[in-house]
């Protein structure tokens, strides 16, 4: 068997995943911490002030990576939901359920930092800008998934129902984004832009990329932490849990 494929099959087994998470969590956590420190230093100390927006543009070093994460996590969540629905892999259900709150957290960070960036830049906390509006809708899509999953008494049924909803959401998300953009250009013209697509200076690009990597590593850490906890909770009566916990004092 293809080694990569075999690795995926192994990862689906709860004891193997438990060991895998325990091994890699510290690495992801410490790397995320170190990169965050480096990114914050480069972005908030070293990088020069923007001559148009002044100092407050530095908020994009948090805002943009978390916006990327909010969408990436939704896609990953839907992928895990699809795997859970088709192959009924228990671990995929767990990963699906664990993605939702982390994604909602990143969406909330995106919204709040976007508002704090908007006040000094646009002169208002909230503009019905296409990106902010889509991000707000995304937050409610996350809430729908979390709410539906927790409404079921049986957590596996809840995960499957929410997975169907997440797949419906992933089909609708591009349409929502497009419709909001269409509506936005119709009503107020392209007055506001979050980041210029034009040349971005390397002193600003590096902190952005470093923060984006840090956000990704944080996500890995948080996902492994949540998934490991949920796995232990669901499998607490199983033999492997007793073995792996009982061997250590």
């Amino acid at each position, binding site marked *: 068997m293809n080694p990569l494929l075999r690795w995926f099959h192994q990862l689906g087994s709860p004891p193997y995943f438990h060991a895998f998470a325990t091994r890699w969590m510290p690495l992801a956590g410490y790397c995320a911490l170190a990169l965050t420190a480096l990114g914050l230093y480069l972005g908030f100390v070293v990088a020069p002030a923007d001559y148009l927006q002044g100092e407050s543009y530095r908020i994009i070093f*948090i805002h943009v990576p978390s916006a990327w994460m909010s969408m990436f996590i939704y896609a990953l969540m839907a992928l895990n939901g699809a795997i859970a629905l088709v192959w009924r892999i228990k671990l995929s259900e767990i990963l699906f359920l664990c993605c939702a709150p982390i994604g909602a957290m990143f969406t909330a960070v995106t919204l709040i*930092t976007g508002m704090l960036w908007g006040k000094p830049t646009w002169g208002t906390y909230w503009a019905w800008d296409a990106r902010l509006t889509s991000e707000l809708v995304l937050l409610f899509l996350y809430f729908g998934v979390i709410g539906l999953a927790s409404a079921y008494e049986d957590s596996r049924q809840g995960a499957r129902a929410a997975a169907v909803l997440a797949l419906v959401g992933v089909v609708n998300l591009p349409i929502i984004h497009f419709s909001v953009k269409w509506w936005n250009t119709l009503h107020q013209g392209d007055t506001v832009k979050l980041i210029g697509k034009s040349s971005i200076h390397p002193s600003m690009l590096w902190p952005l990329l470093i923060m984006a990597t840090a956000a990704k590593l944080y996500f890995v850490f948080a996902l492994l932490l949540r998934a490991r906890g949920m796995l232990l909770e669901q499998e607490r009566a199983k033999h492997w849990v007793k073995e792996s916990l*009982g061997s250590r004092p």
Partner: protein
Amino acid sequence: MLDWLEMQGHWGYISASLIVTALLIAADLIPPWLRERRLRAEIRARLRRGQG
């Protein structure tokens, strides 16, 4: 409160962003971490009782 924030100028918005982000990350991370710790302690205690 918003008035006070707006008095602080650019760095006020920046530090508010950083603080809010840190708070949300803490709210995301600490509850599952505590839950898992409690669960581990519980399982271990039960195992010890079972053996002893």
